[in-house]
């Protein structure tokens, strides 16, 4: 067993964890982060991509609304390349209460969320596909966010300031000595070995998994996993974030992010953040609710369906997870549970990740008896993939403009999302990808309409060329990614996407014989399936 030592250990490589490690590094702490998969593999990489204006919580959760608008302004300034300035609408559809509009306006005023009512004619000029029966429309500064790029960028900033980022390190359990947590025992999935990491302080930023982590140190943290199901349509049917103007409910928002429009979400308490199924009623409900906002929605091609689990913290038991506050919670286990060297930051949402990191690291300073001011609100986060784009907001046409400028049409690996050979090579080498899914999170391969049909074999070929692994390893890498794409397609197999999958099936199962290539069926780095029992687990169940 290897051992390592650091000052502060952060558990969890989502928005919160990477935010915390960047803040720690900027304040000069020696620190390391462990993530059991790739960065943004969990909830961060599975949300609809909304940069909240705070409008969503203006009536129901004013504290969360204020946090959102404060952070909205800061994030636009410090990480513009991760944000598209789409703007947002709150619309009153015929199914909603007209009077809620006034409460909404008042709520926005009370929480300082900028909001103006616009005419329906103006709304339809900007978004001609919206329901013409909408009676009121309010404009707010919502945006859409690339949470993969943001997590990568923040992690790169942390690394540039000396932090260690360890992905594919799964925490087996925290190491407790008496009334103190002194580190964590981790399992390196790639090297297949255990690593004990000693730390003066452990920050539990494991999101929906925070309860599980705390439990290993015999500390009880009640984090509910609230499953949210989302469906992406293959096209930007709207270019503005469109919210239903009513109390938060299932299927009340369409977010245009990169090339797709995402309808979200449901909210169902699930017992295990690891395993959950997407239910047919959820898909039906999303389709039905989306059609209230965009009447032609059902005719669009659905690209993919997925679920994420919200970390919802509550000290007391609650039945409906929607009633849990979306504001975040910082738990100092020394004062709360009498266990020193251990704090948990949980709850919140992507938009408030930086503020959550700030209060967490303030507490770390306090614990370690030092005063170091936070600078993350004024530190611009560079784009690790492209120099020079850092100061501009991301926009929809950017990738196409880049490919055109470089005349890189002949170098496209993922044709749908316009990922070039250079992108893929960068992700494999500099990004230290362990799976093709890691490459996807870095450069968006396989995320377009064909869902990997035409790029998976190309990426596998480049992978093999660059890494020169035994052929069995490349084969299983290919199969893992095909499984990963497939799981998000099963719930929406109708219409054009069914035709696409039939073609993809012919490519991989008939032409390339992917199921019978030498090598294991699946690897331990392969995807966790929504249903209990991953491919790898069922294969190795007898071991």
């Amino acid at each position, binding site marked *: 067993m290897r051992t390592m030592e650091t000052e502060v250990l952060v558990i969890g490589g989502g928005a919160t964890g990477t935010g915390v490690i960047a803040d720690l590094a900027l304040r000069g702490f020696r620190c390391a982060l462990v993530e059991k998969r790739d960065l943004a593999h969990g909830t961060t990489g599975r949300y609809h991509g909304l940069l909240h204006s705070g409008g969503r919580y203006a009536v129901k959760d004013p504290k969360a609304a204020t946090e959102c608008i404060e952070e909205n302004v800061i994030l636009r300034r410090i990480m513009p390349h991760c944000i598209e300035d789409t703007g947002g609408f709150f619309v009153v559809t015929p199914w909603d209460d007209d009077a809620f509009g006034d409460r909404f306006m008042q709520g926005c005023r009370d929480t300082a969320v900028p909001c103006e009512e616009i005419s329906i004619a103006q709304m339809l000029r900007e978004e001609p596909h919206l329901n013409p029966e909408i009676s009121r429309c309010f404009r707010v500064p919502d945006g859409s966010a690339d949470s993969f790029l943001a997590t990568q960028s923040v992690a790169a900033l942390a690394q540039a300031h000396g932090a260690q980022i360890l992905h594919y390190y799964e925490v087996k359990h925290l190491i407790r000595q008496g009334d103190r947590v002194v580190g964590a025992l981790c399992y390196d999935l790639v090297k297949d070995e255990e690593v004990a990491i000693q730390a003066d302080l452990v920050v539990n930023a494991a999101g929906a998994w925070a309860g599980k982590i705390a439990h290993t140190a015999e500390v009880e943290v009640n984090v509910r996993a609230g499953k949210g199901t989302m469906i992406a349509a293959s*096209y930007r049917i709207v270019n503005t974030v469109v919210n239903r103007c009513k109390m938060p409910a299932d299927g009340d928002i369409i977010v245009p992010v990169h090339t797709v429009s995402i309808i979200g979400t449901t909210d169902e308490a699930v017992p295990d953040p690891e395993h959950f199924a997407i239910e047919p009623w959820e898909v039906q409900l999303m389709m039905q609710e989306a059609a209230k906002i965009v009447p032609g929605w059902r005719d669009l091609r659905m690209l993919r369906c997925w679920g994420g689990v919200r970390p919802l913290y509550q000290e007391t038991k609650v039945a409906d997870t929607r009633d849990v506050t979306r504001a975040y919670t910082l738990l100092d286990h020394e004062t709360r549970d009498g266990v020193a060297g251990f704090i948990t930051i949980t709850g919140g949402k992507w938009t408030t990740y930086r503020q959550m990191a700030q209060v967490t690291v303030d507490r770390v300073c306090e614990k370690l008896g030092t005063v170091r001011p936070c600078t993350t609100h004024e530190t611009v986060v560079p784009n690790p993939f492209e120099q020079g784009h850092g100061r501009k907001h991301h926009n*929809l046409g950017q990738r196409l403009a880049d490919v055109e400028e470089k005349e890189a049409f002949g170098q496209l690996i993922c044709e749908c999302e316009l990922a070039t050979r250079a992108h893929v090579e960068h992700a494999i080498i500099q990004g230290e990808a362990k799976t093709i899914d890691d490459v996807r999170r870095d450069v968006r391969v396989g995320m377009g309409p064909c869902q990997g049909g035409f790029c998976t074999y190309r990426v596998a070929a480049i992978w093999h060329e660059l890494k020169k692994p035994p052929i069995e390893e490349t084969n299983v890498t290919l199969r893992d990614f095909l499984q990963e794409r497939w799981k998000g397609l099963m719930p929406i197999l109708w219409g054009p996407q069914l035709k696409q999958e039939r073609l993809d099936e012919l490519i991989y199962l008939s032409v390339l014989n992917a199921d019978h290539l030498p090598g294991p069926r699946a690897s331990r780095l392969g995807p966790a399936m929504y249903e209990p029992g991953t491919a790898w687990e069922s294969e190795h169940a007898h071991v």
Partner: protein
Amino acid sequence: MANNIWQAQLNIEAHTLKPVELTLDHCIKCNICVTACPVTAVTDLFPGPKYVGPQAGRFRHQGQPSPDHSVDYCNGCRVCNMVCPTGVKIAEINGRARAHIVQSGQVPLRRKLRNNLIARPELMGKFGQPLAPIANGLLHSGFGRFFAKLLLDIAPNAPLPRFSGERFSRWAHKRRDAVRSDRKVVYFHGCSTEYFEARVGKAAVQVLEANGFEVIVPSQNCCGLPLLSNGEFAAAQAYHESNIRHMVDYVKQGYVIVGTSTSCTLTLKEEAPEMLAYHTPDARLLTANTFDIHEFLVHLLDAGELKTDGLRPMPLTLAYHPPCQYRAHRLGRPSTEIMALIPELTIIESQAACCGVGGTYGYKAEKYDITMAVGKPLFDFVQQVHGPIAVCDSETCRWNIAAATGVPLVHPIELLAAAYGYEPEGPLAEVMT
């Protein structure tokens, strides 16, 4: 009455007509269009229909400047649409993307001037035709070509047509009372017949009259296709609206519109409404009642109403190129069917995808070489057949093939008119004597 049988019902509701961009949802990335595209086969400047159409379409935003420019190398031949197994309207997506580039002012001034000039054959005709001898002399002189290249970037070897001595509509007007009949058709001559090849219109009128129709030649404008292909949508819409105004009353009386220019009829039928997303009830009425002339004749033939007796034998072996704009009508090969009626005439059909000219595309200096490379297999074919003339339905293709091969071209309707015994004009007259 045959006309009433064809009078199409407007059973398509306007609100079901969706913008062409939404068809990109049906792309399954199969690459069939890429392998069929004649342009991407010869140049790296055009990344292919899949890339510029359904793929790039996902990255375009009506509210932002266009991020791409390679789509401008699409020549609009519509071969991609024809081969697409899922019905993506690739060529139309490309046309609309180009219009967005034009509308956001992303075309350099000199190119914009040029495009606006060559996209207005009606304007050129109005000024050039009355001065035909001088205009022809100038346009076909080395001097004129040199300045056209220098000032406007027009390809020095562009297949420019020659203005004809008399406007077709003047000829038609002079003989407007020659035939009276209850069976009437409206003839859409288009700019090429009006200003450059009156003989095609004359042949069409003769054939229709020989079959007992009175031919109405209404006042009309350019169909607007050259403007559509150059992204000048506002001007194209003005032409289209004017054409609807001039012709829709005839349609409402139960008459159909026939045309000899396959591009014009395609524009009236489909291109203008789809590209402009212009679906008024009158526009849809025009759409449903416009026919290519050979499509019309095949209907007559099927009804046993086409004059097929006493056709004059024509002992010739000729190459025929069904233009891509004609194949885009999705009609089979009506011209081939009609030409087959002519005794002793042997027609050898080309299998080439496209002659390359793409309307105004081949007139542009930066695209001329692509045009010639695309057309090469067709040019070789025409020369191999070695007929004294060759046959093609579309005017710009005729001019392009003739310029590239030295073989003169005729419209198939000219052959039928000659077989009916009418005196041919132009290249056919020389062959028939």
